[in-house]
């Protein structure tokens, strides 16, 4: 039982770790990965806590997470396309505010 909470906490950890990386990492690919990790964290929390139902686990969060995974891949595909478009016009695949002074 406590393992479910352990997974949920790992989910929280992934969420905040992703948030930190999203804020501090300059490269867009890293930001995109960070968002995916955040998403995984949220999904983990959702499904893990659904296991608190006995004897049958609660499947509604699972269905939500499947929805979420599909949304995530759509968003990732869009983000990657945008990133490539951006790096075509300015090298480095970073947002202007993250670009270091020398590049």
């Amino acid at each position, binding site marked *: 039982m406590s393992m479910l909470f352990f997974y949920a906490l790992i989910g929280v950890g992934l969420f905040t770790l992703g948030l930190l990386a999203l804020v501090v990492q300059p490269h867009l690919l890293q930001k995109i990965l960070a968002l995916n990790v955040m998403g995984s964290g949220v999904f983990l929390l959702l*499904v893990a806590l659904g296991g608190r139902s006995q004897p049958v686990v609660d499947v509604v969060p699972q269905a939500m997470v499947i929805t979420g995974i599909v949304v995530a891949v759509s968003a990732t595909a869009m983000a990657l396309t945008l990133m490539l478009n951006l790096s075509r016009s300015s090298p480095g695949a970073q947002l202007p505010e993250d670009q270091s002074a020398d590049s």
Partner: protein
Amino acid sequence: MEAVGLWQSAFDLMLGFSLFGLAWRMLFCADLFKSIVLFITFGLLMAIAWVRLEAPDVALAEATIGAGLTGALLMSAFAKLRTLDNSLKSGQPLLPRPRLHVINFWIALLFTVLLTGGLAYAVLSLPSHSPGLSDAVMSQLDSSGVTHPVTAVLLNFRGYDTLLEMAVLLLSIQSVWSMAGMSDAGEVHTSPVLNVLIQLLSPVLILVSAYLLWVGAHAPGGAFQAGSILGAAGVLLVLSGRPLFNLKKSWLIRLMLVAGPAAFIALATLTLINEGQLLKYPVANAANYILLLETLATVSIGTTLLALFVGSQTEAVQQDQSHQ
């Protein structure tokens, strides 16, 4: 049993910490390629975690979509990025360091730690037992038309969410096409071994896809998993140099992309007229309706995922050629 429980706990702990550690390495390493590889590994470990959490459907979706297709998309994007950005040429991990001032970094870190603490506190305050909606799902499962609860939720109880989700998928391809400018598949260098491999694998994948689709009614599986396997088969075919689609012109492709959401909308309209509520299936026909929806949704999901991949892949190839 105690011993088994202990081993399991140890395994869970290891898995959980590995996930966190992998995420840490992935997000804070200086080599993008390594990050992507770690991301795929992360996805596979997530799939194991889903299994541990008694969520095999999510595990399948994670392995195929989360790790597999997202990984393929990332790889393909990275390859293209490398052609655009000399600093990323292989072997030169020249990622820019965070430009944040040291103090700002520590503030961000402090904030993250506080947020983690707060959220953890909130999570731990949840009751240790909670039925959620499992009772409701189980009691209505019989009238849902399927026996697998996840499929019942996705396609019946919360079918309206899935309808909108199909719209999200359609949007994603519309978006990638309109951003990247639709291009035809270019030439791909291939090898005989790959060809043989793909010749062997493709039919198997299609078979697996069909199986997952069919089995979804009573066991883990369903449209999303089936669709993503189908998409993966397509990705393999594209990689082996088979120009599957002439994306610019083919209305057949468009039809396949639209089939899933269109089926949902058509059925929603039909049920709205006949039953008075959208996506309310008469119990007798529920199984058939769901199978129909899932079949068309599988086609659309597979095609969409493939098209998303092709949408980024083809340009990379063209860029490569222009580079040479």
